[in-house]
């Protein structure tokens, strides 16, 4: 495999990918984990507060690492795809749990 050299030419696209689909992805992760641990969304509970921290930390991790994507398009594809995936999982989970 030949490695391409990273550069910052598409920094804005990569950064926006972490900001927007990245935020959707971290919210999605929060939604899935929250559903799995049956949180009520009441902010007085430990689970709600931990989930909030989790969402922030996931988002920060994505922001910190987004410049490692080879191109802006790739960043959008990967993060957007991952966001769609977790929200899809959330949709299925709620159906299963509600049923």
């Amino acid at each position: 495999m030949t490695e391409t050299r990273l550069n910052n030419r598409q920094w804005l696209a990569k950064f926006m990918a972490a900001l927007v689909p990245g935020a959707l992805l971290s919210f999605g992760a929060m939604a899935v984990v929250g559903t799995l641990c049956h949180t009520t969304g009441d902010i007085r509970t430990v689970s709600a507060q931990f989930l909030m921290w989790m969402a922030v930390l996931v988002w920060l991790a994505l922001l910190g690492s987004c410049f490692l994507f080879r191109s802006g398009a790739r960043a959008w594809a990967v993060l957007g795809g991952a966001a769609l995936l977790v929200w899809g999982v959330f949709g299925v989970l709620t159906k299963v749990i509600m049923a």
Partner: protein
Amino acid sequence: MKIRPDIVQVYREVHSWVGILCGLFLFVAFYAGSISMFEQPLQNWLTPAPTLPEPIGLEATPELLQKAFAEHPNASEHYTIVITPDNTRPARLMWPQDPTHRGHGPQDFVLGALSPTGDLVTMTRRPSEVPFFIDQLHEQIGLPLPHVVARYVMGCVALAYFLALVSGVIAFLPALKKMLFAVRLGTGARKVWLDIHNLVGFFSLPFHFVIATTAVVFAFHDPIYAVQGKLFQRGPVADHGSMHPHGHSGGRGNGNLVHAASLEGQMPPLAILDALRQQAPGFVADTLEYTTQQGKGKSQTTLRIAGHDNRYPMRGATNGFAMVDPLNGKVLSADYLPGHQSAGFAALTAFIALHFGSYGGLPVRWGYYCMGLGGAFLFYTGNRLWIAARQRREEKNAGEGLQTRGTWLLSCLTTGCITGCMTGIAILFMCAPFLPSGGSYAQASILYYMVFLLCVGLSFILKERQREPLLFCVTGFANIAATFVILFSITWRHASLPALSVATIALVLGCFLLWSVRRSACRLSA
């Protein structure tokens, strides 16, 4: 440590750009934040002592309550009993003048005391707002915007700050072993700044990661909780009220009815404190806050006890909380009671306490003060470095000291903002002891922003060579003048530890600034 050189290069570029974008905001936030570590003692110092009779003993509080509620029925809806009165909270009993006011910061309180003959004496006032103003500078990164807007702007700056930390670490890691302790003092200015920046940055890294993460949480937790509410809540939305340290719940109702319901059957404060001491030994109560909510036909009184325990992290900036049954003194909720939290809440509290430095008492606060100043210095060196590097490159390209508009703008802003912030705060401390009731928020804003804008304006007018020495001199002299004015103010008010500390620190800071000007002048002429 080996990292691919192209990755290092990418992150080095990211570091210099996000760093320059957020450096100045962060300087103000850190400088003001380090001072707001001592918001309470400062407020105590700046608020003049009231003209009220000495607070009665705790055992006589029920008598005071009865007399106060007889004259001011609506006081019983929401009132606070102070365990150890000080200048900020000088009376045993106080209640907000406007019970519906649920704002942020100091507000008008009615203070209730008993004269030696047993008559009720009240007065209304609010404590000095200058320390709160400095705290707001910290929270709003120095921007005079509406609080909500400023919070999101702060959040964006905190995101950039986090990114700057990550990229800075990656950019510095390859050279870590070689460069960490190599401060090349004898060489060019740029290398000295770089080495100091690396050294300070590396050793305060955990602190900065904690501050950056918590700042993002503080800025964005509301929308995230809103999303959670939409996702997970089923059925009617629960009201989050009295348990949450930020929120206050309270209802308005017919004052006379409240009066009839509220004191009856309640334990007197001394007995409540005894009961609490048995359930949570080591927790020192500061205030008992009673709130009565009117339900359908009946009223319910909740009691929130704020206090501190230096052995454990605390949820608030200075306090932990317990919800206690006012009828029998039983702890109803220990979710935020230091040392009695469940493991989950204790972990969450620890994250937040790491931002506030609300653990371990005074030594930790002083530690945070130093770390905060160190942080501010770090951002200053970062900006200097950026400017020095640009100037060097531009000189190489264009010869004879030509610089682009961008470099000039940043050079002016850097010097203007940091000297403006430091001078503004020095002037605040100089004036506050002489302002009526220790200074209001509006007075503090006018003073601070006037000085701030003056310094920024000056830095745009002055020539490159004079800019920094002159403005640093202004800041240095303002701090030294503040020392003498504060010492003078002590002669006609009582001397207190906060006043002496502020005076000492202003003196040291002022001397340091003047010394640095002298030093760089020597270097330039050499």
